[in-house]
């Protein structure tokens, strides 16, 4: 249920420039509008892309958030690998990692 709220925040952020501006100005105030755990809130505000990935945020939602945060493609992939290294396999959803922690399938 709480993962639903994390994903809802990101869905709304990804598609609405007004929320993007509000998030840049005061991410905490935007986060306050959603029913989040402390861990989820921290992952969103830091942002901890690896933890968001492990929490089960759908990759198609997370990818756009990473792009919004100006995170380059190779860095985005590496942050997810690091998330799994630190926090273990994904806890929900269908975006599980099937390759090795040091494998870079597309070379990045």
């Amino acid at each position, binding site marked *: 249920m709480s993962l639903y709220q994390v994903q809802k925040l990101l869905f709304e952020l990804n598609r609405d420039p007004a929320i993007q501006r509000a998030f840049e100005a005061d991410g905490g105030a935007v986060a306050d509008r959603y029913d989040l755990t402390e861990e989820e809130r921290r992952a969103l505000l830091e942002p901890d892309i690896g933890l968001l990935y492990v929490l089960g945020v759908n*990759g*198609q*939602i997370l990818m*756009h958030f990473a792009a919004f945060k100006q995170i380059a*493609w190779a860095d985005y992939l590496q942050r997810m*690998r690091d998330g799994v290294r630190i926090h273990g396999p994904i806890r929900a959803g*269908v975006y599980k990692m*099937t390759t090795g922690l040091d494998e870079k399938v597309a*070379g990045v």
Partner: protein
Amino acid sequence: MTLVFSGICSHGPGITGRADLAPPELRDPFYAAYRKMGDAIRATGAEALIVIAAEHFANFFMNNMPAYAIGMADQYEGPIEDPDWLRIPRQQVRGDADLSRRLIAEVQQTVDVAYAEEWKFDHGIMVPLHFLDPANALTIIPANINCQGPPLTPLHRAFAFGRALRRAADAVPQRIALVGTGGISHWPCTPDSGRINEAWDRDFLDRWASADEARLTAYTDAETYADGGQGGYEIRTFIAAAAAAGGKGIVDFYAPIPIFSTGCVVGWSEIV
């Protein structure tokens, strides 16, 4: 008047956004095949293009996730992504609310679509349009199959959706083209990005070319996930395109291109 074209093509933000990272010997023939399909669509005299997409949370979320949706606006906009990241400029795309309304009413006789009076196109539609209609000359009717957020619609219903779109296209006065756009096997937006199961892709494309409903819909979601990744769920768009056409398909281009994160295909089917 009638459906005059039915094709399939891969999408993915990397296809445009990471163009410079791709090996030219794979990228350039893929781009050429994509543009050639645009020429083929124009050669039919099509007035409108239905794009059966598998959008990625640009419009539809788990608060109200439709199995099937069709746009019903006179204008759309896209891409929703950062234009610099996707390398496709933000633009208006012409729709036709009246044509949509007639198509939807006919589709609804057998398939229960949501209608959408606004729609923000993501890379799933903008990447195909970038190659197929660079001059922004066609009227676009966006359609969607939920391939992202389970529970997903069963494959036999995706086939039924294609049949319904065919019946609808045949019932309106305009000449209608259609493309289904998805990926075949891929593990997008994960650390596995770039993983592609070429054997699985080629087997799927063989089934797609056969237009055989039983073969096309024989996968369980668990099998697709294991062999084709969560990106493989998007085969629904290709299944619908095959069902709309009814005839044999021809694969004009296929190659796994890891930096584009998907097996890259361009093909079309005989309308029978």
